[in-house]
């Protein structure tokens, strides 16, 4: 970060911090109490921001986590006679455990289903505390002792304010740390496209649970704080109305922005307290605001500056082309033929045997066998619907085959999930471009560079500095790759701002960032112009020259014939030809599959009637 940039971010933050410090000297006790409530909701909202805004998990039980934290602290201090701090810690731990349980359905369902299941579970929580004698039933629990922090009595709202403020700052800092390093990047990738994230080595189920645990962590901390602040817990504080209020905070503030959600939470708590005498109108108001923001400003208050800048730019320079793609820098400096076709006895990289894949009666693959040797460029062609992409999905671990077996690098991988195959060295691109739309080009490539397993996440707690160092290193590696692929000038751009050809190149760069030994390219030339196709050819040849085996699905026959060492032809889920490009091109079955019976007939007739036919099928 440059000095100027640091000043641009740092100065307002310092001013804000000083203002927050002198704030209690300027206001009355009631406002301080409201500020303390705002701190609690700020922490709670950060939890929802991490689980929903960053990880895309539609978690509507966040207020229940607040309740679990608060009730645990209350019960342990009142019934078990614990001190406040151990009780608060227990509240956080139990809240995390509950959040993991609530998150289990997320392993099976997402989006709308998950929203309603978690909402149902938060109703179950309310039903539980209303009925259990230990939670004080409908009356709740009162008389929680005021926490004392190293001799400071936090029963005083003014002193509590400083404690809460410190906790909020720590909470914001930790959330920012998570969001901008590898765990947060993987969560954002999973939110944008879980399939592509898995293909980049992300263990999606574990990450979903981690997302819920973050919700539980922040919910639990906010809950314990709530118990210490209000010193009274009752079921209605954790009702659906408050869950929706929390959701409104996150949506109005901006669900993808950390400052946004904090502003949303603090702002809405203050507005609610000012409108305390008109609470119904306040409810109508924030309901309407949620609708308005969702339709007109889905990025919330935090998205307003970006919107304004965009409008300003559009007004100024009309249709500025921006920076284009620079030429690719090959690894192999020698002539492109330096590393040609592999020997016939090169080691087998991929072995698929009798792979069958059925979708509800439809047999997409009906017994496909395939052997690919190291260093080969294998073409995979066939008419639409012949099962090429399905075969890629089976090979890359997205769908397990119905029967048959797959071996990659000599290891059985029939049912190996895609994240594990990615870590073993299988990379792929997608037919319909699956870049992470809300992440920059650099972050997309960093997703490929990040090869760490999920258990690495413990470092966030025990060795946070090593996380920062590893991230700086990954950033450097990403820039090297971007430079090689001529994309460094576009590193900060979002994929949607790039031309189609540039987006295709980012996908290849992202796949190559995983340092694969086997690369699967799904129609990489689709939508490219002639020049871009030639560049693609050079890139693929160079990738092979570095020892990577490439399998390529492509409809551009000229490209396939000139580039591939061997070509496999699929038709209606079966291999109908396999061999050198020129052999395959002459095979009658292939011509028939591609052009239909009529073409074959026509060709036969032409062959029979006239000798040298011009302009016929080649």
């Amino acid at each position: 970060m440059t000095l100027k940039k640091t000043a641009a971010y740092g100065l307002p933050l310092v001013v804000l911090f000083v203002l927050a410090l002198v704030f209690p000297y300027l206001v009355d006790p009631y406002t301080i109490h409201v500020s303390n409530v705002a701190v609690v909701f700020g922490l709670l909202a950060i939890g929802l921001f991490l689980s929903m805004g960053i990880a895309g998990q539609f978690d509507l039980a966040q207020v229940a986590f607040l309740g679990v934290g608060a009730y645990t602290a209350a019960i342990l201090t009142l019934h078990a006679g614990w001190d406040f701090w151990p009780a608060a810690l227990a509240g956080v731990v139990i809240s995390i455990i509950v959040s993991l349980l609530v998150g289990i359905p997320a392993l099976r369902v997402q989006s709308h289903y998950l929203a309603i299941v978690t909402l149902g579970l938060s109703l179950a929580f309310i039903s539980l505390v209303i009925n259990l004698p230990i939670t004080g039933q409908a009356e709740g629990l009162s008389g929680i002792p005021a926490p004392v922090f190293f001799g400071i009595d936090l029963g005083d709202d003014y002193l509590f304010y400083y404690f809460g403020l410190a906790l909020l700052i720590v909470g914001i800092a930790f959330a920012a740390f998570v969001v901008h390093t590898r765990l947060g990047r993987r969560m954002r990738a999973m939110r944008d496209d879980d399939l592509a994230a898995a293909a980049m080595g992300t263990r999606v189920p574990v990450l979903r649970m981690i997302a819920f645990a973050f919700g539980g962590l922040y919910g639990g901390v906010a809950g314990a704080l709530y118990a210490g602040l209000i010193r009274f817990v009752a079921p209605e504080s954790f009702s659906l109305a408050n869950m929706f209020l929390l959701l409104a905070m996150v949506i109005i503030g901006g669900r993808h922005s950390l400052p946004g959600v904090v502003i949303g939470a603090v702002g809405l708590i203050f507005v609610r307290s000012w409108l305390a005498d008109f609470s119904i109108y306040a409810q109508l108001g924030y309901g309407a605001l949620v609708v308005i923001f969702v339709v007109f400003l889905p990025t919330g208050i935090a998205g307003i500056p970006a919107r304004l800048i965009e409008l300003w730019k559009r007004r100024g320079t009309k249709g500025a082309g921006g920076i284009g793609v620079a030429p690719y820098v090959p690894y192999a400096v020698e002539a492109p033929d330096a590393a040609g076709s592999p020997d016939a006895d090169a080691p087998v990289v991929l072995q698929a045997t009798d792979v069958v894949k059925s979708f509800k009666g439809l047999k997409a693959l009906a017994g496909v066998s395939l052997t690919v040797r190291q260093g080969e460029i294998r073409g995979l062609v066939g008419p639409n619907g012949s099962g090429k992409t399905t075969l890629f999905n089976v090979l890359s671990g997205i769908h397990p085959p119905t029967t048959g077996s797959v071996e990659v690098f000599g290891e059985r991988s029939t049912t190996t999930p895609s994240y594990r195959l990615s870590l073993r060295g299988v990379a792929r691109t997608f037919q319909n471009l699956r870049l992470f739309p809300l992440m920059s080009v650099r972050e997309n490539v960093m997703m490929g560079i990040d090869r760490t397993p999920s258990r690495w996440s413990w470092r966030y707690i025990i060795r946070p500095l090593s996380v920062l160092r590893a991230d700086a290193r990954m950033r450097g590696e990403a820039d090297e790759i971007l430079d090689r692929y001529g994309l460094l000038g576009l590193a900060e751009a979002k994929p949607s701002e790039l031309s189609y050809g540039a987006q295709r190149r980012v996908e290849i760069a992202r796949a190559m960032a995983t340092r694969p030994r086997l690369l699967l390219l799904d129609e990489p030339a689709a939508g490219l112009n002639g020049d871009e196709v030639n560049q693609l050819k050079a890139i693929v040849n160079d990738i092979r020259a570095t020892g990577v085996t490439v399998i390529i699905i492509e409809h551009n026959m000229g490209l396939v014939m000139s580039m591939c060492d061997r070509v496999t032809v699929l038709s209606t889920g079966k291999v109908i030809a396999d061999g050198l490009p020129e052999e395959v091109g002459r095979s009658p079955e292939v011509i028939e599959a591609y052009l239909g019976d009529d073409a074959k007939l026509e060709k036969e007739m032409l062959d029979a009637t006239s000798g040298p036919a011009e302009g016929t099928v080649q």
Partner: protein
Amino acid sequence: MQFVLQTLVGGIGLGAIYVLVALGFSLVYRTMGLVNFAHGDILMVGAYLAATFFISAKIPFWAAMIIAIVATAVIGLVIERILRPLENKDFDLMLIGTIGFGIMLEGIAILVWGTTGEAVPTPITGDPFNVFGIYIKRYELVVVIVAALASLVLWLFLDRTKQGIAMQAVAINHEEATALGINVGRSNAIAFAIGSGLAALAGGLAGPILYVSPTFGANLGIMGFSAAILGGFGNIKGAIVGGLAFGILYSFASGLSQGYADLVAFIVFALIVIIRPNGIFGESTVNRA
């Protein structure tokens, strides 16, 4: 045995209402791919409207129901129209938008009818039928019949009319439906209006059985949704089976322990989602790479 059968009968009466809620959810989900979170609140507004016209205006119950159904159908149309820019773009945002409408509807209900709630007298008086010692309330019998008729009419509409078939086409592939000249916006609007009308029907019928309050829609809405998932989301058969099954489950849970019935219902629901997310009649979909 007596207890089991009596609870079963009560469960079917309650289940018939869940069926109606589930049908409304399913219809909107099936055509638009959207879970309408305002459904429970629309139901609550419908229940209040029916109760108000029945009690205060002293008009017959069936007429009050029709007014409530028409009024909520209009509310549904308004919601659909405002959220239309998000259709087929961002369903998560659209869902949050329906939550926003739910918050507003609850606020309006509190403004108009207050927070205390209302007990609706049963419109059909007379002693319950006694079948071998099991009591069947006349009103609950009517509810079951109305729910059966509504399911039948909905099925006929979706499978036998041109508009209904067009709506199913939209559900399967909205882009191809557009290419075939089907007005997707209108199709979605009709789905939303019918869905909201069904919510009012469910709410109005539930009024005399349960206690109408500004928050009773949330519970009933989630129960209906759970029922829809249990049966397999997005099909009529699933809504009927799921609704009845959930009604019986809830009835037994509250028969055994009144307070914990909600807890049991929601935990069972979560378990169902974990074990069989596509429900009894649901179809799994394949994510295309």
